[in-house]
């Protein structure tokens, strides 16, 4: 059946309101939409790395999760969920479990690109039937906006401050989606909550119902770290995609598919200028910064087009 947001939204809610995530935060929007892609009859075990999502949704004695949920530590959501999936296989084999269960791990970029990369790589390589979702907000937001390897170049964070000598983060961001594609797992996708969230929903559905390991990298803007007006969340997601800062694509059994190619690719400055973390880039004399970021975005977009056989 073709995707329809109204229909999708009618599904029973698996992630309840009342959690403590900030207004204008991208993460809970992403989580709700991904869980909507589950078949109503399927039970899920959701794991979560330490981070904003975990501390704001499962504060004893309250939980926002209607499915089973486990938080272990910062760097091991993938290994923890892999362990639960292994137990499921054994218990199912013994006939102690009859129903179907889906396994999902959520981690922020700190818990995924950085401290959790090893556990993620291991779990994906071992082929556990699970989906790992990185909600990428480009810094350690839970501890107060410290730079991660997902932080874009020149972003002002509390450990890569835009100072008098060093203008924010010196290095470009790690391309985790590519790293995961090179694990040669059945399904890898990069997505964001844009428009009616069709792209996100359909990729979540594919990831959940593809046999074997799947990885989703989802852009999840953070109003505190990115310093934007909270109602602008969806606008920022859209600008990330329209500038090709965050291309929407998937890799199915090694085949690259670009899901959206902007007719008029916007300059990256459109994405940068609405965020306070890039404010210093717009001061006179700092034009080179925007140029360099534009070059990097263009280079990566061209490389992606090539991988998808589009150029």
């Amino acid at each position, binding site marked *: 059946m073709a995707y329809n947001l109204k229909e999708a939204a009618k599904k029973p809610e698996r992630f309840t309101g009342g959690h403590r995530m900030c207004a204008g935060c991208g993460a809970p929007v992403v989580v709700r939409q991904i869980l909507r892609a589950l078949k109503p009859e399927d*039970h899920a*075990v959701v*794991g979560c790395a330490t981070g904003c999502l*975990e*501390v704001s949704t*499962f*504060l*004893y*004695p309250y*939980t926002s*999760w*209607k*499915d*089973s*949920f*486990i*938080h*272990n*530590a910062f*760097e*091991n959501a*993938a*290994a*923890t*969920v*892999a*362990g*639960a*999936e*292994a*137990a*499921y*296989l*054994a*218990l199912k*084999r*013994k006939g*102690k*479990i009859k*129903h179907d*269960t889906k396994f999902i791990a959520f981690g922020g970029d700190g818990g995924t690109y950085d401290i959790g990369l*090893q*556990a993620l*790589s*291991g*779990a994906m*390589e*071992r082929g556990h039937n699970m989906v790992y979702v990185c909600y990428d907000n480009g810094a350690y937001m839970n501890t107060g906006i410290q730079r991660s390897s997902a932080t874009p170049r020149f972003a002002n964070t509390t450990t890569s401050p835009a100072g008098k000598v060093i203008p924010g983060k010196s290095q470009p961001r790690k391309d985790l989606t590519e790293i995961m594609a090179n694990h040669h797992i059945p399904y890898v996708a990069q997505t964001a909550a844009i428009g009616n969230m069709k792209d996100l929903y359909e990729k979540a559905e594919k990831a959940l119902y593809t046999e074997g390991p799947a990885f989703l990298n989802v852009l999840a803007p953070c109003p505190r770290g990115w310093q934007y007006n909270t109602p602008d969340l969806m606008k920022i997601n859209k600008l990330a995609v329209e500038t090709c800062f965050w291309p929407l694509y998937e890799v199915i059994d090694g085949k690259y598919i670009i899901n959206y190619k902007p007719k008029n690719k916007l300059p990256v400055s459109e994405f940068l200028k609405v965020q306070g973390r890039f404010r210093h880039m717009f001061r006179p004399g700092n034009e080179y910064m925007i140029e360099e970021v534009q070059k990097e975005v263009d280079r990566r977009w061209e490389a992606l087009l090539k991988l998808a056989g589009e150029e």
Partner: protein
Amino acid sequence: MAIRERLSGNEAVAVAMKQINPDVVAAFPITPSTEIPQYFSNYVADGIVDTEFVAVESEHSAMSACVGAQAAGGRAMTATSANGLALMWEILYVAACSRLPIVMACVNRTMSGPLNIHNDHSDSMGARDSGWIQLYSENNQEAYDNMLMANRIGEHPDVMLPVMVCQDGFITSHAIENIELLEDEKVKEFVGEYNPKLHLLDKDNPISVGPLDLQAYTFEHKRQQAEAMRNAKRVVQEVSEEFYKLTGRKYGLFEEYKTEDAEVVTVILNSTAGTAKYVVDELRKEGKKVGLIKPRLYRPFPVDEIANALSKFKAVAVLDKSDSFNGAGGPLFTDVTSALYAKGVFTPKVVNYIYGLGGRDVRTDDIEFVYNKILEIAATGKVDSVYNYLGVRE
């Protein structure tokens, strides 16, 4: 009929795991425990067990996967040593506070650095306050027996805590000894099914595990965990009694060897206790009234029973195969002396010997030296030095 076999300590543990047939084994190779996952993965490859073997990319992920598996309602087991145990450190605490009765075979090896693959107890001693029950094993038979009892102890509803079964790396893990095994069916019956009340795979009763738990609740949760650890002492005795009826092999909180009329004793963990037994026998031929106390249950520490047992001796030497680097004594010594003080037992003079670090051989004459020293202390009532090193070049 029990089965007579000849197995190394690692094989004995692997056989116990095979007979227990856990749902998940997640492990990573590290000397000297590597053989355990090796043997076990053969059982998996040959379809002898129903277990999912998860060949993780690190010990951190081994313990993390065990937490996930046990929370999902499965029985999870692992094996490790030294640096592997250290890499699990963070998650040892999570496993204990989440009240997940995971079972681990710890094949004791010295903690780096310097890098050294041989035996001392610095690995498990470092984890002594992580909330895991710790059982120590003198030989292969004890390692096997402790493994068979571990699930029963940890999974008891009054306990629900993870259990670490320790044995000495290489000394027992790689030495082949005669051993008596139980039949598979008897193990199956003794260990029983694991059917936890709450688990992640219960679709009709979903749960959340591992909350952010702040000032309003953490203290109560820690208090419950401490109470569970206290309960473990009773449960260890109950399970050991049941095991005795099944096998005729008797285990308590600690073993007393020739202590009845002894004037002095040593307190020693694991394989060195075997060496000490030989020395006790030799010295007794000379009419010296010496004995040995070998703790089996180290966490929880049997404070009342240890203090009571030691109260009748004139002098005690506690031998530690790890140093606390606190300038005042090894961990076993600190526990023994604080037990004595807390229970108001001031009779015996107590000294400490740090020995065997990094796998340094401990010889019978080293142990004999200690016995002669405490016999001298018993005779004179004088202690020159409390905190000592045995068998080191100074």
